[in-house]
């Protein structure tokens, strides 16, 4: 009974993790400018990672594999926001301006 409940929870986590990863991939491919694409990619980095690795950890149980997966999860949750921050900061410093509402309005007037 307990095993079945854990199985169901981990399957739900795995499928919703796959769903989030897919959504983030579509977003990174389709969204209009760099900062929105980065937003989509960050969703897969945190939510998708947490759900998929959490689901796999539940399947692994109390083993060495679960400890390694926890290490991977902790490391990814620490580093991928840091990498996103470094990327956004480098893009801003290099002069890639985010589109604000005023710029969008100007673009609409120019057309």
């Amino acid at each position, binding site marked *: 009974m307990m095993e079945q409940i854990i199985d169901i929870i981990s399957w739900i986590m795995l499928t919703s993790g796959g*769903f989030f*990863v897919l959504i983030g991939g579509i977003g990174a491919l389709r969204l209009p400018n760099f900062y929105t694409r980065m937003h989509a990619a960050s969703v897969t980095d945190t939510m998708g990672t947490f759900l998929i690795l959490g689901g796999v950890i539940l399947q692994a149980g109390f083993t060495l*594999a679960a400890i390694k997966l926890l290490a*991977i999860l902790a490391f990814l949750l620490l580093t991928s926001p840091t990498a996103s921050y*470094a990327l956004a900061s480098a893009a801003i410093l*290099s002069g890639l301006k985010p589109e604000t509402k005023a710029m969008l309005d100007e673009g609409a007037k120019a057309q």
Partner: protein
Amino acid sequence: MSMYAIVSIAILVTMIMALIRALYGPSLYDRVLAVNMFGTKTVLLLSVVAFLYGRPDFLDLALAYALINFVGILAVLGFFQSQSSDQPEEPEK
């Protein structure tokens, strides 16, 4: 078809999308973003495939790849930042 296979197919499709973005990417930072995303997805794919084929030793590869990916992205960003500061677009007086 097991649950792991479905998740790994979803991750693979996302990796293909990240590759397309890395090839198209109008700016340099789009490419770096796509490569970073590709690396994170590789770690996820390795840890899911480890359970799909029942070979837990793949997890060591995933851990090592997670470490290398982070350092690699920071190194690439640092390289491009120092390169762009070496060659200022407008010469200063």
